[in-house]
């Protein structure tokens, strides 16, 4: 029985490790500047996790393999209550490894979250609502027109409540897909009209909740042109699974030309680009 259990534990361990380190199901190819550092931290972590997992399971299997009851009355177990030395050694070693890993893991976080977006970032307001994304771009003036919840009128397609009387709103545009420049820091100002949503583009290695009543500013730099799926990652109600959009990363000059178009043409042209651009492969 002990040997069977040991073999099953070892087999399960082996299979778990194999499925974790397969090539097919893995993080999607990264497209952001912070991703390589994040992926390195992930790989380091998963190696430590893999070693600790394997060592513990192999050890457990070894004990059940080796120390079976012989059934003889005179054959007794080792009488020991433990070893303080061992306790100290393994406590200190795990403390150093685990906490060290935790501290190292803050580097990427700090670089992204403890600083404002660099000057000259491309700025987009994101306003989520149940099952739909709205992306608000300032025009040539680089100033976002005033918005006000009391001006929101979904039936008139004023999804984010833009104040048409505000002169700086004249050249603004609102789309249902996100378009950003490549290799230039992007700042998103995240808001929500109703419940909590979450901005999630897997190859970007980036996720952030959009919380009603708050404007959350985040930033990242995408470094690969292409079309990517954008999902809502926070349960927001009935059609949460359909709250889908796309993120289109364009060369800067192409984006500048696109943004120079009047609102309707911008939307139409963006739609055309989205239709004609194939999705970036996810693995």
């Amino acid at each position, binding site marked *: 029985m002990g040997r069977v259990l040991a073999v099953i534990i070892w087999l399960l361990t082996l299979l778990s490790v194999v499925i*974790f380190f397969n090539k097919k199901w893995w993080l999607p190819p990264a497209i952001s500047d912070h991703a390589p550092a994040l992926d390195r931290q992930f790989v380091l972590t998963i190696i*430590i996790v893999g070693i600790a997992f394997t060592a513990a399971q192999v050890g457990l299997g070894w004990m059940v393999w080796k120390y079976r009851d012989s059934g003889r009355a005179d054959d007794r177990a080792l009488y020991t209550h433990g070893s303080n030395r061992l306790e100290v050694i393994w406590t200190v070693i795990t403390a150093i490894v685990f906490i060290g890993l935790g501290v190292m893991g803050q580097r990427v976080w700090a670089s992204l979250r403890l600083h404002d977006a660099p000057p000259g970032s491309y700025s987009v307001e994101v306003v989520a609502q149940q099952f739909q994304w709205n992306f608000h771009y300032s025009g040539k003036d680089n100033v976002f027109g005033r918005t006000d919840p009391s001006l929101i009128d979904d039936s008139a397609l004023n999804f984010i409540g833009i104040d048409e009387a505000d002169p700086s709103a004249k050249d603004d545009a609102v789309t249902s897909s996100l378009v950003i420049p490549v290799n230039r820091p992007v700042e998103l100002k995240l808001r929500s009209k109703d419940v909590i949503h979450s901005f999630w583009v897997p190859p970007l290695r980036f996720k952030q909740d959009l919380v009603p009543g708050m404007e959350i500013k985040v930033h990242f730099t995408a470094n690969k042109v292409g079309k990517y799926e954008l999902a809502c990652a926070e349960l927001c109600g009935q059609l949460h699974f359909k709250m889908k959009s796309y993120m289109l990363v364009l060369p800067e000059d192409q984006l500048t030309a696109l943004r120079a178009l009047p609102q309707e043409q911008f939307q139409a042209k963006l739609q055309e680009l989205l239709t004609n651009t194939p999705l970036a492969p996810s693995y």
Partner: protein
Amino acid sequence: MSETHEVHRHPAPTGFIRKYIFSVDHKVIGIQYIMLALAAVVVGMLMSLLMRLNLSWPGTKWSILETLFPAGAPGGVMNPEFYLSLVTMHGTIMVFFVLTTAPQGGFGNYFLPIQIGAEDMAFPVLNMLSFWVTFVGFIVILAAIFLSGSDSTVGPIGGWTGYAPLSALGAIAGPGQGMGMNLWIISIAIFCVGSLLGALNFITTLLNMRTRGMSLMRMPLTCWAWFTTAVLALLSFPVLLGGGILLLLDRTAGTSFFIPGGLYVSGVLSGSNPNFPLHTGGSPILWQHLFWFFGHPEVYIAILPGMGATSHILATFARKPVFGYRAMVFAIFAIGLLGFFVWGHHMFISGMSPYSAIAFSVLTLSIGVPSAVKTFNWIGTLWGARIRFSTPMLFALGFVSLFVAGGITGLILGQSSLDLPMHDTYIVPAHFHLVMGVASIFGMFAATYFWFPKMFGRLMNERLGQIHFWITFVGVYSIFVPMHVMGLVGMPRRFSSFTEYEFLKELHPLVVFVSIAAIITITIQLLFYFNVFWSMFKGKKAGDNPWEATTLEWNTTSPPPHDNFAGVIPSVYRGPYEFAVPGAPKDFLMQADSGAEVTSGNGHNGHKH
């Protein structure tokens, strides 16, 4: 000493109702809790089965579904809100009515007083109330299934975490947010009250009612686990209770604790319409803080009793003292204490301060240290052992394996940066199901097979038990390990369908594999149910001490008499796990063996009242 016990002595009741229904006997109450969990887990498991069907074979027409839920599954195909209500109710029922009731209210209630040599809990009537309050909570959550306010759901659809403002806005936020949500909050509030009553009782009993010689450091590790769990419950449930009341007020009294101003929901501006009154100034993140201040300790409430049972059973069947008893006690404390400082790791990307994320992250990784210490000591206990492979031992060994497998990915999820890709993907349910769900349940399976002969005087069928173990053990690995990989690819949790996204399509074979594994694993649990009820009446008769164990519950008859020790409370002379003592006549020395011929370890002076 004896005076203390006089106070609690009460004659055995004779009527059926006082004996089995409104009983004040901790043993009956313990069994009531276990039965409640056995009933609740069926509901929770059936819900997960339905979810798996929907995820792996989308669009398939299940005519049985249409018969049962004509509005939730029109044409036999589940609609999204029905799926989400299954998600919510599955989580709520499993976390509260299974993982919090059986380990603590069930086995803790039954065995804590006996293991410390007490005749009952300190407050027997309070104990009865705590069960019946919990039972009412269960009735209310069942009511939420049938009175959800929209006939296309079986309850609210916001997940067991009930994040505001989705949970706070009421029917305007969509299906499932009406009466079902109110009942959900009320059920949990009632549950909190029941758990608080129980926690007070556990703490008082353990501190005041230990028999002569039962010093704290001679207690079985199960008692340490139940005690720490009770302290966690005492400190965390009030916060959830308070949060729940505020949430209910937001929904029914027009307050704005969790609802900010300027919301525009389903085409209506807050305050512009009687269906959606004016709200202003609330904070959605406040709910998350209150919820997770409870929710994280709750994870340890679910698993600490399993750890205690595992330590206890490993030593018994290894025929060897627990390795590093003292370190085990400190590790339980460390886990309990640190458990209160890490709730923010559920909220790295919630919009809270990124600086606090750093503190929460480092504290979270440090909770891995006492968890690792426990694992090392379990393996240490097996080193040089003479293992007897009975079903309880198999499940205890399974617990260790699963606890490692599930717990270790906490090193990934606890890092704020890695949460950027990992948060709210399938790696999260994979992680917590393995560790707080399946490992805890393995602890309870071990406890059931182990203590069943004491509770019912008969052994469970060993052959059925072993089949149950092998299939369940391989089954749960097959279900939850592939889910980790889905998370790496980026599959979001709480999606009722994966067909909308191209990047999720490559995962479909895994989704189907997991569902098949789940169906097999769930089906085999019938064997466990059969074994429990068959063995109650037909099982092999067990003596007082069928496992040759050492602690006080094995010093009395199986099942124990109403006052546990028939009026003669044993005194304790040694530590709880004195196996293989050199020179002893047998390979185990019971705590109550007074034999002075052997001096064994852990022999502190007797505790004095």
